[in-house]
């Protein structure tokens, strides 16, 4: 099923980690993403890039996993940046008041550059 969530992730390397979900992020899949993000943070990630460019759909239940991970990172002085070029994702962040909490970059290179300035 193409909509099924798949998550590519590696253990953090020197505090840096990226997580790449693919498929849809909603009530059915948010807990799976949350688990992977928490696992990554707990393994020592301080700078986390979540690349949403292969996500086909995301709603507020999907964003709840990202927000939970962001809060967990912030508690450890860490930061999270999203990679997306999807206007609807940016619009949802604005509606939910999360643009400050979760900065957005157009490429992973830009995301790492943003994290380096934080």
């Amino acid at each position, binding site marked *: 099923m193409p*909509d099924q969530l798949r998550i590519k992730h590696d253990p953090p390397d020197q505090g840096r980690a990226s997580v790449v979900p693919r498929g*849809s992020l*909603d*009530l*059915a899949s*948010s*807990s799976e993403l949350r688990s992977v993000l928490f696992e990554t943070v707990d393994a020592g990630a301080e700078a986390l890039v979540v690349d949403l460019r292969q996500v086909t*759909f995301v*709603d*507020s*239940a999907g*964003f*709840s996993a990202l*927000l939970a991970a962001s809060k967990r990172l912030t508690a450890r002085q860490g930061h999270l940046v999203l990679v997306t070029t999807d206007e*609807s994702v940016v*619009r*949802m962040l604005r*509606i*939910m008041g999360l643009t400050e909490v979760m900065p957005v970059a157009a490429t992973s290179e830009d995301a790492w550059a943003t994290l380096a300035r934080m």
Partner: protein
Amino acid sequence: MGHARPHVAAVPGLWVTESRLPGIGRGISESVDPTGMDPLPVDAPESSVCGELDLPNRISTVRRARGAARLLARRNGCGPATAENVALAVSEAVTNAIIHAYAEGSGRVHMVVETSADELVVTITDTGGGLSPRTDSPGLGLGLSIIAELTSHLRVETPPSGGTSLRMAFRRV
């Protein structure tokens, strides 16, 4: 008459009636079929149901309802961007129903999709306990704010008999 015919949709549990005239409901100027088919009757209803779905209170229902709503939006004159707005709003509405209305136990989620002159109207109804807040909610509690942003009109009804009905209208063009 016969301006609509039954159509078996690809989505299980969904029935759809497709207009013989692609422009049905879009206004008087488009109510005559250029291919020579029967014109719309002068007493054509202001809105017509184009799809209905009744699903169990399960997490997988969110995706099924969303997919059906997106399909119906595309089949009834909505562009890709509007169809995505419809899908997102339905996802939020059905998630609300599952999280808040049916914290436990069984229940059904009912979706009706209608077209009017220039809008697609989706109504999500549950028979649960209303939009009561939950301290253990897996969502952000922002579903209604998002729906309000995506729709041209939004009406929330909580009939005395129980349950909640969300009527969401989207401009098709």
